[in-house]
């Protein structure tokens, strides 16, 4: 057979369980404990409300530029909910909700977006990397962590998030290839929100899906409806279980949408139509999941209102704590901390020079 077809991979599937009309596929419905379902709902709401509050704060000049996550709550939470505390999260810069789920405090997020280095501190014992701003660069760290976990015979799994734009970076490619070669326990979760700032997916790649990029690495790939928290959860659980069992990495493409601007410095009306956004607003993952919970009797109007109230209070408390903390932060000399385990002599001298300057300025202010 000289012109012979090669079997190169299982085909790529698309998974949807609770569709945008609210139709549920009972056969595929994952078996999620009630408590977890409610926790998912609570964090979806927390992600949403915190995002909205940050936008207010930003507009009031009380925080700096930040990237809203609205519309991607299901896409983040359905995946992260499959991790154990001892697993590792390797986020990009738009997984605020996932980070909150993992235990990051609201105030740490606010400190970060207010330009305080204190906002990227990871709590002790927590297996999370901090946000990574350089697009795609974190994917490789996930592979290193996973390799190390495997070397240590820990059954930890690493989950790495990144956007559709990130799939164009060389780091993405090298990361997925290394993971496949070493059969490292990583779950790659692509938040395909259709846009990389102003660049639509169709200018990012000539492929109809991002999931099929898995075929280039010899790993399973799957596309899921990212606004369907059940589908995201089902796909991620399968991938996490496979990774934990030694089955290697998986690429999950969550098809979702960046409903808001890229960051608060961005003006999306320059490059996309309001109709497109409207279409996606109708696919909002939050009411879709809320209605499902109500239909199965897990949520009532009253309990939903209570969650809403609790979440708003939590957000307010986070904002208050952040503002309290910021009042005590800001010593400029802090900038010299933690570059190295030990500050080298020449840098120490620079720190001392700055300390003298600041003291002199202080004196001037007091006497001047």
């Amino acid at each position: 057979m000289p012109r012979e077809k090669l079997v190169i991979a299982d085909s790529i599937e698309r998974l949807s369980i609770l569709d945008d009309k609210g139709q549920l596929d009972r056969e595929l419905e994952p078996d999620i404990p009630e408590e977890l379902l409610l926790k998912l709902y609570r964090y979806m709401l927390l992600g949403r409300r915190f995002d909205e509050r940050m936008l207010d704060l930003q507009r009031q000049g009380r925080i700096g530029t930040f990237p809203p996550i609205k519309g991607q709550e299901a896409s983040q939470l359905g995946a992260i909910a499959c991790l154990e505390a001892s697993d590792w999260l390797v986020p990009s810069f738009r997984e605020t909700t996932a980070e909150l789920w993992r235990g990051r405090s609201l105030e740490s997020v606010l400190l970060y977006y207010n330009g305080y280095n204190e906002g990227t501190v990871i709590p002790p014992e927590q297996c999370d990397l901090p946000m990574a701003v350089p697009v795609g660069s974190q994917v490789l760290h996930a592979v290193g962590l996973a390799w190390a976990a495997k070397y240590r015979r820990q059954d930890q799994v690493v989950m790495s998030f990144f956007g559709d734009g990130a799939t164009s970076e060389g780091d993405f490619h090298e990361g997925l290839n290394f993971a496949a070669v070493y059969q490292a326990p990583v779950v790659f979760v692509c938040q395909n929100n259709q846009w990389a700032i102003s660049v639509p997916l169709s200018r990012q790649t000539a492929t109809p899906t991002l999931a099929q990029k898995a075929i280039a690495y010899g790993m399973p790939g799957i596309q899921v409806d990212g606004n369907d928290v059940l589908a995201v959860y089902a796909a991620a659980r399968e991938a996490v279980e496979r990774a934990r069992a030694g089955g290697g990495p998986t690429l999950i493409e969550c098809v979702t949408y960046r409903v808001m601007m890229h960051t608060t410095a961005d003006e999306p009306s320059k490059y996309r139509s309001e109709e497109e956004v409207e279409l996606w607003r109708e696919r909002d993952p939050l009411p879709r999941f809320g209605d499902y919970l109500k239909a199965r009797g897990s949520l009532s109007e009253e309990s939903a209102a209570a969650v809403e109230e609790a979440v708003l209070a939590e957000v307010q408390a986070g904002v208050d704590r952040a503002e309290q903390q910021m009042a005590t932060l800001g010593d400029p000399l802090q900038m010299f901390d933690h570059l190295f385990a030990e500050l080298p002599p020449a840098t120490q001298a620079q720190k001392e020079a700055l300390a003298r300057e600041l003291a002199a300025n202080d004196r001037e202010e007091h006497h001047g």
Partner: protein
Amino acid sequence: MAKMTMVQALNLALRQEMEKDDRVILLGEDVGLDGGVFRVTDGLIESFGDQRVVDTPLAETGIVGMSIGMAVYGLRPVCEIQFSGFSYQNFHQLENHAARMRWRTQGRLTVPMVLRAPYGGGVRALEHHSESREAYWAHTPGLKMVIPSGPRNARALLVSAIRDPDPVIFYESKALYRAFREEVPEEEETLPLGQPQVVRQGSDLSLIAYGAMMRPTLKAAEELAEEGVEAEVIDLLTISPLDDTLLVESLTRTGRAVVVHEAPRSFGPGAEVVSRLMEGAFHYLQAPIERVTGYDIVIPYFSREKEYIPSVERIVEAGRRTLRS
């Protein structure tokens, strides 16, 4: 003459060069409909279409590697790296190829490209958006490293960079993008690459800076003038290849110098300036040359960046020290 911000002046340079020369192609992330995240390419896709203003996938190596091929073919790509903090992704393409193609082929194939990137702090940006690492490119033989300090010279230097037959790294200070306006003539204006300028004359002290540091440096010169010290202020404009003629000449008159940059101090551009002055004017030196620079640390998140970036006071204080010495 119209009063323009640096963003507008850069836009003018691009527009006019694109009108004049269909070899000029813009490419980068979000340079098209979005007009660039700082709006430097605003309106250009509307005027020139998406074959002249090319949105790229999110891949800096790709942008630079592709630009190299375009330039070898005979085009004049002007690529934008969205922030200079993301230009290390493409470091190897610049060092391995852009900087060497003419040399490698002994003049047969050349890479007349420009890489534009915003640099520097002062605009409350996120991590990786505020660095000033021009020394990396300055130390790379085969590349030119240019940094304008205001709308008018930004426009003139960008035109020269586009017409230059060799690869030019062109850093634009975010802090200057909209900080002030200057008269920028509609008619063509260029400035030769590789030539620093005296922007204030004086004979007591030479202050040497570039880019965003020109404004605090000039301010410092004014403050010193109030104390009766006349500082000569020099704007490097081209960091590399560094022509030290003017610097050395200034020092032979003043005997004292302060070099200012935002970049980390050690192994930074200031060290080369100091060395050139030492080599060129040793016997005129009356005091150690001072460096007022960023510290040898990563520039902190924005709540503390003000204290990181050289201030007028630090420059004045350094000036005073060299005069006391």
